[in-house]
């Protein structure tokens, strides 16, 4: 084993960039006079995330490798998902830059670097090869997120959101950690590869299954899927919009990364007590299927009754988590591919939508969906962009949302036997989701306006909106762009250690 100092630290270049940026910003924030605007700090953070993204992209051709006793892995999976995390993070930071709550934004500097820390945690999750680093980086993400949720110190909704987030997050951490302790107990190892190997020889199926279920429930907190989805609407509603966008996108992506790293790596080959000799993961497929179905149904049905845009998107994100979980539940060869594609698209369309909602909240102080009424009349381009994101969220062809959803569908039915019920549930919930997405479109385009015209979109938001819109359209009409990138990762053949 090589010495710490002989490790190839350049593999961690993206992480270093983000970490360095976070620390530098922290220092600057402390040093800067309090009357100076912190907006440049957020821009700097976004730039850092973008830089880290470039660094990650530059490493795509590299062979998979690991350092620090295999606790940090840089395989195709890590690179691919880091790209999405960084893209989501950078875009969310653009929202931070234009964050203007009505009580003023004295904590924008903190907002920027805390988000960078959270992003760092999410990136480390993607690269972790060890239960310990996985746990610690996850907690870095979580704890930073709690702070992000409560950043509007004087706003009671924000405080409440943070409190709820912490309490539920704590419970989730405890449950997951409890599961981890059983896995550790069965194998005595913390390295994921070692665990996987030793689990093959274990003869404690019940404890193993219990560990699996504990881990699954723990992870479902991050995913915001049934049964651990209920915190999401409250927290999304109470948190500042950029934080909400971050939770909906980066946190969720990190959750799926965790799901794959943790459950697939460890349990794909673990024995089970099923009818025929198969792996524990496969024997748990029905559970995941049911949870995915419930998530889709609850997310899309309850969204029908929402008036708050943030809350609505929270339920919508639950439904989307259900689609993603369905893609996972299918366990076809397209699983990771389809999740990556969906998460990429999901990031673009969600951040785009949140950027416009952020603008509306900034201008009107409310996120009621009436605020959208008649937007088309004064800000046709803005309305068109939001319409595009909503269509994409609804999975209408010609937008990125369709092509990603199609791939999930294909994954669902390519297995033998196919998951037709899940596909049907997904199809029906998609149609149910039309109701609330198109309800927003109706507000945007059909209804007369009640409120004063919105101001122009500030630079940060418009950058985010333009990037997301271009991405959504480009992937919708030329999905080859995204799939060619995906093909670079060689179907994550090096995923299992």
């Amino acid at each position, binding site marked *: 084993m090589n010495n710490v100092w002989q490790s190839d630290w350049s593999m961690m270049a993206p992480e270093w960039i983000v970490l360095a940026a976070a620390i530098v910003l922290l220092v600057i924030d402390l040093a800067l006079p309090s009357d100076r605007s912190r907006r440049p700090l957020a821009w700097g953070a976004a730039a850092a995330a973008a830089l880290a993204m470039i660094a990650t992209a530059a490493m795509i051709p590299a062979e998979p490798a690991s350092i620090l006793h295999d606790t940090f892995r840089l395989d195709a999976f890590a690179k691919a998902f880091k790209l999405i995390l960084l893209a989501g993070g950078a875009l969310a930071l653009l929202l931070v830059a234009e964050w203007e709550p009505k009580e003023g934004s004295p904590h924008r500097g903190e907002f920027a670097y805390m988000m960078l820390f959270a992003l760092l945690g999410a990136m480390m999750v993607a690269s972790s090869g060890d239960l310990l680093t996985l746990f610690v980086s996850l907690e870095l993400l979580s704890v930073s997120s709690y702070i992000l949720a409560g950043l509007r110190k004087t706003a009671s909704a924000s405080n409440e959101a943070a409190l709820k987030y912490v309490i539920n997050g704590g419970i989730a951490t405890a449950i997951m950690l409890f599961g981890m302790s059983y896995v550790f107990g069965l194998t005595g190892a913390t390295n994921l590869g070692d665990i996987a190997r030793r689990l093959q020889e274990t003869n404690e199926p019940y404890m193993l299954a219990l560990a699996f279920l504990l881990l699954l429930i723990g992870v479902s907190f991050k995913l915001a899927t049934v049964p651990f989805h209920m915190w999401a609407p409250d927290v999304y509603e109470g948190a500042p919009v950029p934080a909400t966008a971050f939770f909906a996108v980066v946190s969720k992506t990190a959750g799926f990364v965790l799901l794959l790293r943790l459950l697939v790596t460890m349990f794909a080959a673990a024995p089970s*007590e*099923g009818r025929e000799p198969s792996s524990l993961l496969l024997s748990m497929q029905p559970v995941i299927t049911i949870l995915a179905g419930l998530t889709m149904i609850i997310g899309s049905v309850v*969204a029908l009754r929402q008036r708050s845009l943030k809350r609505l998107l929270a339920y919508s994100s639950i439904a989307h988590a259900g689609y993603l979980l369905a893609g996972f539940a299918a366990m076809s060869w397209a699983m990771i591919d389809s999740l990556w594609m969906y998460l990429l698209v999901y990031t673009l369309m969600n951040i785009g939508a949140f950027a416009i909602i952020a603008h509306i909240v900034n201008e009107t102080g409310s996120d009621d969906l009436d605020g959208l009424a008649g937007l088309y009349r004064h800000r046709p381009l803005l309305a068109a962009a939001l319409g595009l994101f909503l269509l994409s969220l609804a999975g209408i062809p010609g937008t990125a949302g369709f092509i990603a959803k199609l791939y999930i569908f294909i994954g669902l039915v390519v297995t033998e036997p196919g998951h037709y019920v899940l596909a049907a549930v997904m199809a029906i919930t998609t149609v149910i989701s039309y109701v609330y997405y198109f309800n927003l479109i109706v507000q945007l385009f059909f209804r007369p306006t009640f409120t004063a015209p919105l101001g122009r979109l500030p630079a940060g938001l418009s950058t985010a909106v333009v990037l997301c819109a271009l991405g959504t359209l480009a992937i919708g009409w030329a999905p080859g762009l995204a799939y060619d990138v995906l093909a670079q990762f060689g179907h994550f053949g090096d995923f299992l250690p």
Partner: protein
Amino acid sequence: MMNLAWIVPLFPLGSFILLLLFGQRWKQASAYVGIAATLLSLLLAFAVLVDRLGGSTYEANWTWMTLGDVTLTAGISVTALNAWMLVVVALVSWLVHVYSQGYMAGDERFSTFYAYLGLFTFAMLGLVLSPNLLQAYIFWELVGLGSFLLIGFYFYKEEAKAAAKKAFIMTRIGDVGFFIGMMLLFWQTNSFDYDDIFRAVGDGTLSPGMTMLAAILIFIGAIGKSGQFPLHTWLPDAMEGPTPVSALIHAATMVAAGVYLVAALFPLYEASHAAMMTVAAIGGVTAIFAATIGLVQTDIKRVLAYSTISQLGYMMLALGAGSYVAAIFHLTTHAFFKALLFLAAGSVIHAVHTQNIEEMGGLWRRLPWTAPLFLIGALSISGVPLFAGFFSKDEILAAAWTNGPRLLFWLAVAAALLTSFYMFRLFFLVFAGKARRHEDAHEAPASMVAPMLVLGVLSIASGYMQTPWFGSFLGEWLTDGTYHHEAAPGWIAVIATVVSLAGILLAWLMYGAQKMPRDWLSARVPYIDELLRRHYYIDDIYRFTVVALVSFISRLLAYVDRFLVEGLARLAAGIVGAAASAGSRGQNGQVQTYGAVTVSGLAILVVIFALTGGYWL
């Protein structure tokens, strides 16, 4: 000339199109377009007929549509029957075109009238030239269209609207029978061509059952179009149309199309005794049935309409009795004398501006041309010897005697009696007696009288085509010389003469000389009178059965549609909505509840796992 027969219908079609496009501009001159077009048709039709006299037939087909390996064709065929009908139709049509110039003068939709006439003539000529059932069906419906348009010509009258609608729908009912029969024949023989169908009938490809079914179904079409019982009710109402239209369409040509159709398909019918009996029975019943109603009508045109129905029944009876020639013979003579009667009636209406015969009287002297011509028509239809109707009716009675059931023969005789009675009741009420009103009534212009004159001549002359004395020109010709006149008992002619004269005498006693009280019968059996005046309540029966049933089903379905179908959709939406509300309420803001939900989810999964031992589902 026969290869040019396809041009015959095109002249009126051209007239229709031209008048539709330019009629508004040409106004009264439109008549000349129509008259010229039909005259050209008539001349060409004559030429074809003359050509046909040589004995050859002609048939030409063009591809109309290919359906895989089946090719449906459109074409023309000139057979004896077709050529004959062509001339009859073209002739009557031309005469009506001429007549209308006077009758319709001053109407603001004059050109439209001529356009519609052209359309109708086109369709009717096309119908008689059809070499196959499909084409016949197409033109069959198109003549219905012409009839519909012309009945509804006075569109602003509610009665005209209702009559037009009724005419179309009642005939449509029959047409569907035709449609189904035609389709069945195609199913069995893979062809619509008359020749192919006849061949299939001949070589037994078509089973007897199917033959009967198809024949009867097609006959339903004929029932509808020819106003046979029980689909006759539209025809009297159709008198809402202008009178020339009644003459052309609802007396001479279109209503006879049913007879023509059965005649054209005669080999099919001959193959099925049951079908023949159906035709005969319907014809016989209609003949007497309509004649009885005709007794009590007070509208001049309605009397004639019921008389038309009755006479068409005669023709059907002839066909059913197997005498194809008699049917066509009567069709021809009827076309002439009934057209004459209608045109004369039109002239009367033109003069007195009413159709109610109770308000007429003593017009003999005021209408010096019309009255005698009407008399000729009446004599002819009554079957008075030496007039055309006598010969054709005699032929039918003979056929009914030799081939049909006895009952039908006697029904026909009774109908003959009634016919002459109501025709002369009409004649005496209109022309005899004292003038009641209309001192200013005057004779119609020459353009109206001239066609009547021609028809008057034909109403006498046309009978001599087929007489016991001068040979059977028509029969020989229609059957390509294989016709042999079945010697009917001589007394039939005597009986026919006696009953017709008896009818006239009775009418004279009651209405001419007024020796007998008019309410002689109605006073004694008032319910019969009432029954007749209400047309046997047929319309009411329909209203309370078929119409009520359809509207009941329709209302039922409307409820199904609104409550069941829509209800299920709303139920689904309601369930989703209720679930949404429930889910939304479940989200109660209590963070500990959220945790509890999670933990119970976990607990459920663990318990299921523990119970099933990993055997999920």
